[in-house]
Structure formats: structure tokens, C-alpha cells
């Protein structure tokens, strides 16, 4: 049954692709919806069944499908493993995924490539599940790559606009750069293990075979892959551009699931990262810097989806901060809660965009509070959650992370995290107020939003409000259930309840402060930021990072490849081969001259042969 969870989405994608290719013009709305939404629903049910099995106390579930490669030591099977970490991951991936599929059925209803969309979407589901349920690093890597591919396909879904294609290429290429590190990490791991098996369990057992330096290198290389996949500095520039895809894509892939694959990876390899705390610190630093950086940029963005994209990057930074400092469960917990409210935010944003006829600039919106009540309320809940206001989910998970940073005496990281928390509240409420509360510039006539889009919002709002209690610390009365359930090798904390309450209170205060700032600036009248100071100019242009990359990296590469294609390839390689051909031709001409039809010459040739033989005989026989 475990394998079904992975195989069903792939099968449905394949089926829909075949049907779509058979006749792309026909709108088989019912069929595509049935298969496209029904499959994730089935998978959700299956994963809940499996989850309940594991909850009831059974051990990790394994299922091997077949042996794929067996070359000497390199023994890879297509096998799945559902341990507690995987169960937690697939539970929210399938659940939120199904909700987003239902949402997409409404969002993409009028689109021509409806079937294509759902085929890609299911492909993504299958890939993500493969990634999470993999038994060995190679399988995980296959899922990793496939997720990148699905992301590319879905970002570039509106392929008529060339800018979308560019965005898709950017995402894929940056992913690839990260994957380079990832592959090297896996290979190094394999080589260092010297043939003692290559599934996660066996690596865990034999991890002591590898010395610290190699382990550090492996850790860094694997994290480079995570940098690309989870949009951390410096490989993050694809994430804002990825918003060119349809909103359900942004909700599912770039908020709830794919981008969290990097965090999952670090948690999965926790048995490596606990041995190398220095690398963990590096990871946490990158996470904190990315979080702060993204929060600053988000504060000045005016495109609703881009704000949410930077917000995702920022929250991912929090997650990496957690797993970097050794609190793997807290990182995964934040992944879990973040999926709920971020998906909700994206879906709500999608509803707003549809209602306003594909308008995405928040300063052109306003005053939607009364006309889109449901969306407003659900998004309000989500914004509260992300800002870390109790009792919503974000508070518990974010608080756990900041407590860890403080308790392990990494005060700079804690400070960055706290500042980011305030900025998070600020820009999220800025978004909320500008879209819903501020006075609109002009009156708008709204398009109706179908129920298929609003119902998931409600469900997710409920989730955002409640799931926080799954991981609440003892200080707040919870039993940190999720931490115990995950049983990952977390660093033990030693911090008093009083300090925890202080830190928690500080977080709430910062959140309210941010909300207050936003209220004063944006609730009444929303003005687009005037770009007057240099600082503002830098931030609005996203610190010119894209331009820097283009100038220093992309341009030289392009020049180099053009040079090779236009100069080296024709002259050297073709020239060499042409030279050979010319040589052959010349010698052929030369030999052709021998056959000139004159008998005299032929007699001469015979004579040459005879005389050669005679010379040989004379020398050999020594007749002299």
C-alpha cells in the first residue's frame, strides 16, 4: 500500500497526459477533475490509514518494489520507507495538496490546458511523495529532480509569454546548480561508506565509518542542494520569478511542499548533521540571513504574490535556522504549520486576483473587506498565524525556533530572528490592510469566486488555528507531542519556563508592534512606497541581486559558450576533421594518378614488384 501512495499520482498523470494528447482541444472537464482531484484524495486517505497505523505504535513501514541497479557495492532498490518523519510529511503534503487540487479545479476552470495542468500537478504530487517516502538517497534524489522538473513545467505553464518561460528556466537552472552540490554530496557519501549498503537505515548505522572532515564536506554539499531547492541565499533568485505560474502552483509548490524539501532533507540526514554542529551553525546563519533579507525586501514589494514569495523565503530561513541548530523536530513542525497558513494565504491571494480580474498590484486593490468577507476572515487568520500571535499555529512553531536560538546562546541569530518576526508581522499586515481595509482608488466590480475555491480556505483556516497545539512546548501546556513523535536527534535544551515565557511574550510584542506599524501606515490610505532614499531604492530593486548575477555570472557564461560555438567548434574540431578529409582526398588523387591507362606504367609496376622480390631473395638467400 505504501507504494500505491507514490505510484497512483504518477499513473494518473500519465493517464491524463495520454488523454490530453489524444485531443487537446476537447474540454473533458469532468474527467480531468475526477482523475486529477480524485487521485490526491485517494492518496490522502491512504496516507491517513498508514499514519494511523504508525500512530497506533507499529514500526516503520517498508515496501520494496524491485531491484534497480546492482553493480558490485552499488545496490539500489526502488523501495519506500515510511518512518515517522515521512508520515508527518506525507500527511500534510497529501492533505493540503488535495485541498489545493480542489482549489485549482475552480481556479483553472476556464483554462484551455486544464488536462495538461492536472497532469503536471499530479506528476508533482507523485514526485514529492517519492522524495519523502524514499528509502535511499538515490530514490530521494530522483524525487528531488522530478520535483524540480514539475516546478519548471508548472511555472512555464502560461507558455505564450516568453517571460514566463524565462522564469521557468531560471528556476530549473538554479535548481540544477544546487543539485550539483547535492550529487557530489551523495557520491562522496557513497564512496566514504565503502560498500556497506546505501539505504538511509544502513547509512545511519555505519555513519561512524566516516571521519569528521569528510562528513563536514558532505553536509555542506548536501546543503548546497537545499539552498537551490529551498531558495536560500545565494540561490534564491528564482522564487519571486516563479510567481509567474498559476496561483495554485505557487500555493502548492512554492509555499507548502517543494521548497520545504530542503528542510526535510536536513532532517532526514539528521544523523549526519548532529555530528557536525559547525556546519549546522553555518546552515542556521544562512537561514537567519535569508529570513531577514527576504523580510526587508518583502516590506517594499507591491505585487501580492511576490510579497508572499519573499515571505516564504523568510519562513524557510526560520526552518533552516531550526534544523541548523539541531532542533530538527521544531524545523519540521514549522514546515507543518507554515504549509497550512502559507497555502491559505496564496489561495486567498488567488481568490482576490481572480475577483479583481487578474490584478496583482496591492496598491490597486483596497476595501475588499465587505465584498469578500470569507476570504478576508480566512486571510486574517492566516496573517495572525504567520505573525506569531497565539493561539494560532505560527506562534508555537516560531517561538520554538527562537527559544532554541536563545537557549543555545546564539544571540545574534536570535536577534535576527526576532527582528524578522517583527518585519514579518509588518509586511503581512501591510498586505492585508492594503488589500482589504484601505480606501480603494476606484470602485471595482468583482468577479464571483466559485465555492471550490473558497471551501479549502475555510478548512485551512481551521487548520492554521489549531495545529499549533500539536507541538506546543510544555511551558504552554502542550506536551510537544510532535517532537516526541518524530523522535529525531534534537539537541536537548536547558531553559527555564520563565525565560520561555519572556521570549514568547517578546515575540508577541514584536508581532503586535509590526501590526501596529502596518495599521498606522496602511489601514486608512494605502500609498505605494515613494522611492526617494537610496536605501529604499536598493530594497525596491531587490538589492540588484538579479542584475549582479546576470552581469557577473550569466553574461560571462554566455560569452564563453558563444565563443566556443562560433570559434572553437568550427575552427578546431571541424577544422581538424576537414583537414583529415582534405588529406585523404589529396592522397586519393595522388593514387588515382597511378592508374593512367598507359600499359607502360603497368608493366613498370609489375617490374617494381618483381625487382623488390628479387632484391629480397638475393639478400635472403645470400646469393651474392
Amino acid at each position, binding site marked *: 500500500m505504501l507504494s500505491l501512495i507514490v505510484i497512483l499520482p504518477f499513473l494518473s498523470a500519465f493517464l491524463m497526459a495520454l488523454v490530453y494528447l489524444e485531443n487537446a482541444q476537447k474540454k473533458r472537464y469532468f474527467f480531468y477533475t475526477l482523475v486529477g482531484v480524485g487521485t490526491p484524495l485517494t492518496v490522502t486517505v491512504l496516507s491517513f490509514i498508514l499514519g494511523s497505523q504508525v500512530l497506533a505504535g507499529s514500526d516503520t513501514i517498508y515496501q520494496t518494489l524491485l531491484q534497480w541497479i546492482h553493480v558490485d557495492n552499488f545496490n539500489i532498490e526502488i523501495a519506500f520507507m515510511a518512518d515517522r518523519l515521512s508520515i508527518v510529511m506525507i500527511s500534510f503534503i497529501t492533505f493540503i495538496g488535495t485541498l489545493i487540487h480542489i482549489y485549482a479545479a475552480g481556479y483553472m476552470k476556464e483554462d484551455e490546458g486544464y488536462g495538461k495542468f492536472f497532469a503536471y500537478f499530479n506528476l508533482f504530487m507523485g514526485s514529492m511523495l517519492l522524495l519523502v517516502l524514499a528509502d535511499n538517497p538515490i530514490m530521494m534524489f530522483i524525487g528531488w529532480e522530478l520535483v524540480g522538473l514539475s516546478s519548471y513545467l508548472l511555472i512555464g505553464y502560461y507558455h505564450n509569454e516568453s517571460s514566463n518561460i524565462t522564469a521557468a528556466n531560471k528556476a530549473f537552472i538554479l535548481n540544477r546548480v544546487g543539485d550539483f552540490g547535492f550529487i557530489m554530496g551523495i557520491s562522496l557519501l557513497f564512496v566514504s561508506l565503502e560498500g556497506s549498503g546505501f539505504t538511509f537505515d544502513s547509512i545511519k548505522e555505519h555513519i561512524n565509518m566516516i571521519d569528521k572532515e569528510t562528513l563536514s564536506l558532505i553536509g555542506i554539499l548536501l546543503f548546497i542542494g537545499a539552498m537551490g531547492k529551498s531558495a536560500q541565499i545565494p540561490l534564491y533568485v528564482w522564487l519571486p520569478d516563479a510567481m509567474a505560474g498559476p496561483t495554485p502552483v505557487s500555493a502548492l509548490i512554492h509555499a507548502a511542499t517543494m521548497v520545504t524539501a530542503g528542510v526535510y532533507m536536513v532532517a532526514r540526514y539528521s544523523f549526519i548533521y548532529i555530528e557536525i554542529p559547525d556546519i549546522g551553525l553555518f546552515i542556521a546563519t544562512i537561514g537567519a540571513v535569508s529570513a531577514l533579507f527576504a523580510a526587508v525586501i518583502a516590506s517594499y514589494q507591491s505585487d501580492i504574490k511576490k510579497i508572499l514569495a519573499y515571505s516564504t523565503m523568510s519562513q524557510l530561513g526560520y526552518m533552516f535556522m531550526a534544523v541548523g541548530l539541531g532542533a530538527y523536530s521544531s524545523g519540521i513542525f514549522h514546515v507543518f504549520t507554515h504549509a497550512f497558513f502559507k497555502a491559505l494565504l496564496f489561495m486567498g491571494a488567488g481568490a482576490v486576483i481572480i475577483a479583481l480580474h487578474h490584478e496583482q498590484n496591492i496598491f490597486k486593490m483596497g476595501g475588499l473587506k465587505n465584498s469578500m468577507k470569507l476570504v478576508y476572515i480566512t486571510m486574517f487568520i492566516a496573517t495572525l498565524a504567520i505573525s506569531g500571535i497565539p493561539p494560532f499555529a505560527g506562534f508555537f512553531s516560531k517561538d520554538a525556533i527562537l527559544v532554541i536560538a536563545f537557549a543555545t546562546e546564539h544571540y545574534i541569530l536570535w536577534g535576527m530572528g526576532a527582528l524578522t518576526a517583527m518585519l514579518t508581522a509588518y509586511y503581512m499586515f501591510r498586505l492585508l490592510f492594503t488589500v482589504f481595509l484601505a480606501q480603494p482608488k476606484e470602485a471595482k466590480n468583482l468577479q464571483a469566486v466559485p465555492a471550490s475555491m473558497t471551501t479549502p480556505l475555510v478548512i485551512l483556516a481551521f487548520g492554521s488555528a489549531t495545529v499549533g497545539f500539536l507541538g506546543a512546548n510544555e511551558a504552554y501546556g502542550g506536551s510537544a507531542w510532535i517532537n516526541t513523535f518524530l523522535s529525531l536527534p534534537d539537541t536537548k535544551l536547558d531553559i527555564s519556563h520563565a525565560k520561555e515565557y519572556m521570549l514568547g511574550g517578546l515575540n508577541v510584542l514584536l508581532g503586535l508592534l509590526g501590526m501596529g506599524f502596518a495599521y498606522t501606515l496602511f489601514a486608512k490610505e494605502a500609498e505605494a512606497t515613494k522611492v526617494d532614499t537610496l536605501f529604499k531604492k536598493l530594497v525596491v530593486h531587490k538589492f540588484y541581486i538579479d542584475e549582479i548575477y546576470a552581469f557577473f555570472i550569466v553574461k560571462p557564461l554566455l560569452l564563453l559558450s558563444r565563443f566556443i560555438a562560433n570559434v572553437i567548434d568550427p575552427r578546431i574540431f571541424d577544422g581538424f576533421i576537414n583537414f583529415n578529409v582534405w588529406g585523404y*582526398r589529396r592522397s*586519393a*588523387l595522388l593514387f*588515382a594518378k597511378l*592508374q*593512367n*591507362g*598507359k*600499359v*607502360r606504367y603497368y*608493366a*613498370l609496376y609489375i*617490374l617494381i614488384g618483381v625487382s623488390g622480390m628479387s632484391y629480397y631473395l638475393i639478400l635472403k638467400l645470400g646469393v651474392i
Partner: protein
Amino acid sequence: MTPELFFLLASILFSIGLVGLVSRRNLFVLYMSIELMLSAVNLLLATFSKVLNDADGSVIALLMIAVIAAEAALFLAMIVHIYRSGRTIDSDKLNKLREGAQNA
């Protein structure tokens, strides 16, 4: 008078004929060189028949002379024909049997 002298003479005559065959373009000289080669072989045969005291060699040489005569007739007829049609007695001009001309 040893047979070696005759052998030497026959060999030298044969090679002179061969040299003439390859070097000259004049058809008549070609023909006469061929005849020379055949005659050298005749000499060799006659010498052998004397060495071995067997008249067979001489008989063969005699029949060879007849063959030479027949060949002479044909060769010269051909030369006449060639001269009549091509107005040339240069063997190098008769190269129509070579492979198709390479224009490269």
C-alpha cells in the same frame, strides 16, 4: 665454352628487352622488345637442350619461332590499324582503359 656464358647472355638480353618495353613509347620499339625477350628465352631453351642432351628444348624453341611469327603478324596489323584510326604510334596516347577521370 661453358653454359654460364649463354645463360648470362640470355639474361642480359631478356632484361634489355624488359627495359625497352617499359621505357619506350614507340609502338614498334615496344613490339621489337617483346620479340627480343622471346628470343632470349629461345636461346635459353637451346642452351638447355644442349646441356641436357635432350632435343625437346630445340623442338620447343622451334615451335616458339612459329608462334613469334604469328604474333608478329597480329601485332603489326594492330599497329597499322591504330595508326590509321588515331594517326599516332605513341603508346601513351592509348589510355582509354583507365578509370573515370577524377575532376577533383
